[in-house]
């Protein structure tokens, strides 16, 4: 019988600890599939963060390293400078990337560090039980803003793609989501672009992925998907925020 589909070799065949309805599992699979399709399984180094995806170092069938909270981009810098032939991926959540690791994120982007970040934005601290994240939406409740996030007390959620797009060192920035099949397909395309640009030596690349966290949002998986669709995307618009310059007419002719 003809085999039409098989599990990606980019993931280790063990049970994942993610909650039902969580977006991490989907994104893990997409990242793993892209690594495999690019023929980079033997040349990829995955950085696992602190947060729910701390165990990513067990799940990906590549070399992996788990580091301090928020320091992924600095660790990636060390890895990539010593092993430029490797595909270096820093997998990070919102607390990791946009709160404690904000300086490392911005400076790695500004150095045009040749690395790729997979940024899972689910607007909450998952691993520690649902505290307010730097990307928690206004009015959204968490265990440390039980009445809902207010501008007076907590300021505004960070829009990371928009912020990094001002930096010359950032080469490719795209925000996607995984709340519906079409978005999952777009996310995979974005991941492939980021990894390809890295291996072409073009500089800093990041894909921000809006993801659902039913457990810490206190919603059912279906309600969580509705929140991404109706509340998150309106504050965090999907799209490409930094892309390679389009070739000029002359260049196009040459091609």
């Amino acid at each position: 019988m003809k085999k039409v589909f098989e599990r990606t070799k980019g993931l280790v065949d063990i049970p994942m600890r993610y909650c039902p309805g969580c977006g991490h599992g989907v994104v893990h699979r997409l990242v793993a599939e892209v690594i495999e399709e690019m023929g980079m399984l033997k040349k990829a180094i995955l950085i696992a963060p602190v947060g729910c995806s701390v165990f990513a170092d067990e799940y990906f069938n590549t070399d992996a390293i788990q580091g301090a909270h928020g320091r992924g981009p600095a660790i990636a810098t060390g890895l990539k400078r010593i092993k430029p032939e490797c595909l270096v991926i820093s997998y990070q959540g919102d607390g990791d990337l946009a709160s404690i690791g904000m300086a490392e994120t911005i400076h790695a982007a500004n150095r045009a560090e040749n690395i790729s970040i997979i940024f899972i934005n689910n607007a909450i601290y998952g691993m520690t039980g649902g505290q307010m994240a730097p990307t928690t939406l206004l009015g959204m409740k968490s265990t440390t803003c039980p009445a809902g996030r207010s501008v007076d007390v907590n300021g505004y959620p960070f829009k990371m793609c928009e912020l990094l797009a001002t930096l010359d060192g950032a080469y490719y920035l795209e925000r996607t989501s995984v709340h519906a099949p079409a978005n999952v397909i777009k996310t995979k395309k974005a991941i492939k672009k980021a990894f390809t640009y890295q291996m072409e030596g073009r500089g800093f690349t990041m894909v921000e992925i809006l993801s659902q966290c039913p457990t810490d949002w206190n919603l059912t998986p279906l309600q969580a998907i509705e929140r991404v669709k109706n509340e998150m995307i309106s504050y965090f618009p999907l799209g490409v925020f930094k892309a390679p310059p389009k070739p000029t007419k002359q260049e196009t002719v040459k091609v």
Partner: protein
Amino acid sequence: MAEKTLMKGNEALAEGAVRAGCRFFAGYPITPQNEIPEYMSWRLPEMGGTFIQAESEVAAINMLFGASACGARVMTSSSGPGISLKQEGISYCAGARLPIFYANVVRGGPGLGNIAPSQGDYYQATRGGGHGDYRVFVMAPGSVSEMANFPRKCYEVAFKYRIPSMILADGLLGQMMEPLEFDFEPVDTSTIPEPDWVLGVNEGRKRRVVRSYDLAPGKMEEFNLELDSIHSEVKANEVICETIETDDAELVLTGYGTSARVCKSAMALARKEGIKVGVIRPITIWPFPEKIFSEIADKVKNFLVVEMSLGQYIDDVKLSILGKAKIDLHKRPAGGIPVAEEILGVIKQILGKS
């Protein structure tokens, strides 16, 4: 290189590290160690290595975490406040068994303190420094020549045992110039075999994971006990200590680094006056030369500890001697530098000589 050359302590340390195989340096400016990153910024590219001025000490140590996981001989340097910021990352390196090397050119503290020489970071250096149960191999140079030649031993021990290693200097050693000779040939990094834990291209081997956590019940205790046995090995094999004229001594002076230099001068003054003084100078302060202190304390009943801090180093002396001799302390913290004459005065007081 057998010829003598004149160098500043910080530059000698940087050159010594490069000759010992350092090919990756990430750091952040802080006085009094700025000559180290400045030197590395041109010297490492010359050797095909990498220099990065990081956005912070926190980023610098994590760049080392990544580069070290790829097998490179890495280095960072700082002074007290910056080393405090690096402690989280150093703890991660200890937990992930990464053989990093770093230097603390100590300044006066606490807080921003001052930029004068100090030995106030002794506890931080010899007790691990960051969170968790780990130790760092610590060498304490007392001259520019030793600043240049100690990095080689630090890398050797770090890679042999897979533990962090460091040099504990001070602003005086970093800033002064002295003639020096390198006592080793430059290491050819291309001849060093790649260790079996290094990340990178994993053709023909199983995938590798570098990490400092294990949540499975009992696993972290197991790892800590394994680390303990490695520490015991380091203690058994890697102690370096200098003892001078302790055989006939009625009083033993002891200190490390700059303080030990002053102790040696004070000893010479005392001997000139017929006062029999010896010196014990630990070169490794972790592991500490406990046995040497203990043996000498069987014969000599007066010890005078000299340190440029408020009584940190004296704790290790006490723990080694275990009450077998009387111990006095001469302390000059945060920029106070003892001189031989004042130590001679203290010696005379202790021995009841005028």
